[in-house]
């Protein structure tokens, strides 16, 4: 996959297109098709989850929960597919609701969109729900949308009872 960071020109991106993208992404994650999910990202991407007290700050300079650039994101995916990733073996069952999709801006930098999420995770007799908001920066790779920056802002003050974020949120 190559990453071409180009202005949008006359290409029009609609909210419906973003919604289709997000629903497809959610399905890939729920089906544990993580390599295909990784292909949705650019090579210079960032995937992050702030801590409850680091929202809006540079996630690479504070104690976030996740601040993965592409190499670490690849390792995260690689790890999750192994039976030795104990926290996720056997795999969790997950189901995601993605909603309140908003297309915020659409300019030379790319397309900014947000969406609310609820991710239900069930494993080892424990059911938890992660709730929050996605903040996306998309760019175009040819005609295809790619994720350049994906922030999952979770609303939980403490990860109790979750204990961990071993799945992709």
């Amino acid at each position: 996959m190559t990453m071409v960071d180009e202005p949008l020109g006359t290409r029009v991106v609609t909210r419906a297109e973003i919604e289709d993208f997000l629903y497809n992404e959610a399905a890939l994650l729920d089906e544990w098709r993580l390599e295909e999910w990784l292909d949705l990202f650019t090579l210079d991407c960032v995937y992050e989850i702030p801590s409850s007290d680091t929202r809006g700050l540079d996630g690479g300079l504070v104690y976030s929960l996740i601040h993965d650039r592409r190499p670490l994101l690849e390792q995260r995916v690689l790890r999750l597919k192994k039976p030795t990733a104990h926290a996720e073996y056997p795999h969790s069952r997950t189901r995601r609701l993605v909603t309140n999709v908003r297309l915020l801006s659409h300019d030379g930098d790319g397309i900014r969109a947000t969406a609310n999420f609820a991710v239900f995770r069930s494993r080892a007799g424990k059911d938890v729900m992660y709730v929050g908001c996605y903040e996306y920066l998309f760019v175009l790779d040819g005609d295809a949308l790619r994720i350049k920056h994906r922030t999952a802002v979770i609303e939980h003050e403490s990860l109790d009872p979750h204990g961990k974020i071993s799945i992709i949120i």
Partner: protein
Amino acid sequence: MSEGADPRYVIDDRERGLFRVNREVFVSDEVLDLERRHLFDRAWLYVGHESEVPRPNDFHTRQVGGRTIIFTRDRQGTVRVLLNTCRHRGAEVCRERTGNRKIFTCFYHGWAYNNSGALVSVPDSDSYSSDFDRGKLGLAQPRVESYRGFVFTTFSQETQPLLDYLADATHILDQVADISDQGMRIVVGTHRYSMRANWKLLMENSVDGYHGLTVHQTYFEMMMNLGTTPPGLDGNRGIGRGVELGNGHAVAVMPELGSPIMSEEVLLERRQRRAELVAKFGEEHTIRIANMTRNMLLFPNSAVIDLNWGIQVRTMYPIAPGHTEIVGWQLMPVGISEQMERYRIDNALSFWGPAGLATPDDVEGLEQCQRGFASTNEVAWSDISRGMKKEKPTIVDELQMRAFWREWNKQITGTAYTFENAPLDTSYIASDTAARAGGA
């Protein structure tokens, strides 16, 4: 077994080299009640780091030893711990997590306190009798003492001074803090999570080298995929040393793990900083502080884990026997380049925290233990004997955990604590003069 030993919870058989802990201690409400009274009401408990309240009137509200406290630097610059409960009817007087405030006003009836704890305003105070003494109704303040910026509190008046309490753990805190001559700071951001497992399992896990290769195999594979071969992975399992530090504190020390993510610039800066350390402390102490890692337990419920590329400070507290709340912070040297800060954060996040590539597997392991404890009636004892008759226990031995359990058993049952290995090998311990040169 030592004289007067109570073997109900801990079997410490020096002669046969066997050490066992009864799993009742992980599941029993009665034991948790004993822990609250004998440990958390008495011990020095980690509150935070002075760098978290850099300016006068900065504050954080926290849970420490089950109490809600306000950790603040008052307007005169004194670091204080105030119990967050109104002297009138009990409500918390501060409901924000962090901020900068001179006055804390209880919203229930409007009583107001300054950040030195004094009660400064009672609405309609004329309605009180002449014996109502406002001067005696300040916010309650447990004892506060600090060492190298690490602030502790105790709710007991009888507990020995912090310096005595920390025993040889002070040397390890020196090694952590000596890395910077401009001081250390806690990075903005808090990892707050829980586990469905007993809090003591995470104390054990925090100094347990034995689980490294099995639990964290995927982490080490990640490191190798990114171009680093951690030492001790080629069958050489017995590296480093486990050391008892006194009063239940213990440390596992080993050569540095290697750093999976490092640019040329960061490598150069590391070399330059190392040269500065050698100039200041000499080669021997520099090896300790810059080329060794240390996983340290501070009895009863905190840990400082210095892996060179990151320093995790962690506390754990029982909500219930099988439910623990965990808070993790990241400590960093002051005065390093932004690049170096990013490098440290990258490494810290790749390992630690509820979303790291290592910690979730620890939580999973400990929750699995707790599930296994459902059979405690049939399988009563856990084994922590590894390396017990060794002269030099390594990090994959279990001396570190035995030190914790001996102190725990002393506090809970009154069984005397005696060191397992005497005389203590001090080759990993900083000399006072070198360590204190960095400033206390």
